[in-house]
Each structure stands twice: as C-alpha cells, then as structure tokens.
C-alpha cells in the first residue's frame, strides 16, 4: 500500500467538491481536495437564489467558508491542478501539475464546466487542419513541425512541454501564467518559447493553419495551434478512466442517483454531470457523492 493512501480524493473545490469533502470527511474518511478557488464558476458570482439565505452572498466568501468547514473535519486541500488520472488495482492515482502523485480508494470528479474554445477568426474553419484542443490526442501528428499552444494555466503549460518531444519548435502564447512555481521552473528550463502578455487575434491559413496573428501585432509561422484553456477537464481526466458520457452532448459524465459513474469507486458531482448549472444542484450531488464515496472506501479498506 502507498504510504499516503486517501479514502476520498476530490478534483475541484467549487461547491460540488466542497460539499463532497464536508460529507465524506465528517464520516471520518481521509479526504484530499485539489483545485483553485478562483477557477470555480462561483468565484466571481453573487448568489441570490440559494436556499435559506435571503441576502446576496458573494461566491468568493462562500468558497472560503466551505473550505474552512471541510478543514474543520480534517479534509486536506492542495491548490493545484490535476494533469493525469489512472485507475489500477482498485486505486486511483492522481498526478499534480507540480509532479506529485496521490493515491486514493475513491475519486469524486467535480471540475465544473469551463470554456474550451478561443472564439477567434479562423478557429472553427481550421479545426482538425491545424487547430486542436487536445495535445495528448494530436501531438503525434506534428512531428518535426512548428506549433503554438495558447492558454494561461496548467493544461497549456504541460501541453507545451509534452509537445517538445514531437514538434520542432513550440511557442506558448499566454496573457499571464497561472501555474505552480515547480511547473514554472520546469517550463523555464525547457526549450518552450514563451510569449507572454499577449493573446491570439486570428488563425490564418487556406487549407491548413499557416500563421497565427497575435494581439501585439506579431505573426508566428506555425503548422498547428493547440488551444488549451484552463485546466484539463472531463474529456481528458474522466474519459481515460473509462467513464461514460451522456450520448446527447458527449460533454457530461453519466451518473446514477448515488452519483456513481460506470466505474466502481468513481463519482461525479456538480456542473460536470450536466444542467442545471446551479449551486443547489452541485451541493446536493456533492453531498450524495461524499457519503457514497466514504462508505465505498470503508468497505474496500475492510475487505
């Protein structure tokens, strides 16, 4: 057994993940929560429709209070993104952006939903002809070519480093990097050419991507551009564990009323399971997922 084995690992510290942490930790499970509060949809919101609170509540304050509550039950928090997940021998392994590995008997996915498209000229027309949304899927098609990655966070940074093993030149276009110091050091010591303080204005090409025009007026000659906004989401972290998505949109993770996915020990809660995207739903699902995961982990530990 790994020395730091958790009962419940939770990816996401929005209302879904926080409520799951509160319920699982209060059942005496050993709980760890990953994620960055400012990346929660709730962070900038003001809430008026959440039960039993008449006043307008600030989302940021709710997130801080929820964390304190979960910590009072001994849940541990780590403000890092998860960049890879694995499921082996009934245990889940999680790899953080700083290169650490954590192991847990159960995993609750509450990464919310995030924007994935850049919404710039040329992007839609050139999808699959140089525009890609998945470094892990498509890096291999760019052997020996020049590529750019755009994004400010862990997905773009780790993506750019991965691409170094395939492409000839790798640019990372970002407004401002929001990553851990360890990952920043790794980037700094790599061959990635970082272009900070600007963003993509337009993607240009007749049949395939030929150039990327930046907001600062610069033009990059590249064969491909990888759009990697934010952190890795459900398609990257859940699909490779074998989780089934809803057929209608192929965007949301399917769960039953216990918030179980098709994979034993894997749960999902909050915006990631589909609409309505509301706090009340996220905490409701988080509560169920937290209780169920804690019980499942206990059974597994006793067996």
């Amino acid at each position, binding site marked *: 057994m790994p020395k730091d084995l958790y009962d419940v690992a939770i990816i996401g510290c929005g209302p879904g993940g926080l409520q799951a942490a509160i319920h699982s930790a209060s059942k005496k499970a050993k709980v760890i929560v990953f994620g960055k509060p400012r990346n929660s949809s709730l962070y900038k919101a003001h809430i008026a429709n959440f039960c039993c609170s008449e006043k307008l509540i600030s989302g940021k304050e709710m997130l801080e209070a929820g964390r304190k509550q979960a910590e009072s039950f001994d849940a541990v928090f780590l403000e890092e993104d998860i960049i890879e997940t694995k499921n082996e021998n009934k245990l889940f392994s999680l790899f953080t952006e700083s290169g650490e590995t954590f192991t847990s008997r159960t995993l609750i996915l509450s990464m919310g939903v995030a924007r994935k498209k850049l919404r710039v000229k040329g992007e839609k027309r050139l999808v*699959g002809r140089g525009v890609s*949304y998945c470094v892990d*899927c498509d890096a291999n*098609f760019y052997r020996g070519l020049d590529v750019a990655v755009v994004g400010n966070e862990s997905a773009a940074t780790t993506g750019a480093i991965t691409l170094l093993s395939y492409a000839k030149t790798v640019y990372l276009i970002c407004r401002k990097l929001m990553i851990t110091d360890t990952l920043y050091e790794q980037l700094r010591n790599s061959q990635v050419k970082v272009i900070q303080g600007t963003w993509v204005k337009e993607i240009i090409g007749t049949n395939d991507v030929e150039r990327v025009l930046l907001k600062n007026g610069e033009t990059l000659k590249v064969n491909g551009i990888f759009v990697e906004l934010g952190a890795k989401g459900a*398609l990257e972290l859940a*699909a490779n564990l074998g989780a089934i*998505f809803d057929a*209608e949109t192929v*965007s949301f993770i399917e769960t039953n009323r216990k918030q179980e996915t098709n994979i034993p020990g894997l749960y999902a809660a909050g915006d990631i399971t589909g609409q309505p995207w509301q706090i009340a739903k996220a905490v409701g699902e988080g509560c169920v997922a937290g209780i169920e995961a804690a019980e499942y982990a206990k059974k597994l530990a006793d067996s």
Partner: protein
Amino acid sequence: MGQGVLDVDDNSFESEILKADKPALVDFWAPWCGPCKAIAPVMKELEEAYGDSIVFARCNVDNSPNTPTQYSIRAIPTLILFQDGKVVDQIVGAVPKSHLEGLVKKAL
C-alpha cells in the same frame, strides 16, 4: 446491425471501406485519446440503429499511420463518411450524438 463497430487498418481499408457496397463511417481514434473514448459508445449506438445500411468502422491511427496521412488527419477523433470510395463529409472532435446522426442520415 448489432454486429459491433468493425476494426479496419491500413491493409483492410481499401476492401472494407473504399470498395464497400454501402456507405461507411470511419472513426479515426487512438487508445490514449480521451475524447475518442467518450465518442466510442455513440458509434456503437448508431451502429445498432443504422448498421444495416451503413458500415461503421474504426481505425486506430497508432497502428495504421498511412490511412490517416492519406486523408490529412491531424486531430482525433476524426470521423469520415465515405461513399463509393470518396469522402462525403467529415467531423472532428467528440460531437453530440445528434450531430453524428445527422451525418449518418445524409448517407441513407
């Protein structure tokens, strides 16, 4: 119908897809690709519904590098609809089922 999605590779592509007596929808995928895994069940469902009139196939780009190069594939999953050996339409990414079903219905 219900025979499952057919696995094709560089060797069998011509006989199974290009020379098929029916239209064929090919899913270019790889085992390390999350979005490919997400869309696999959708292909299966469509095969169960439309497998009588259309060939549903998948091609692992890891084992068969030539076919994807021939069709200039640079992102997976890419789904290509073939009719009489020619590309009729193409979709990139894990798209909704309705989207893919629309493509299939075009070929009916």
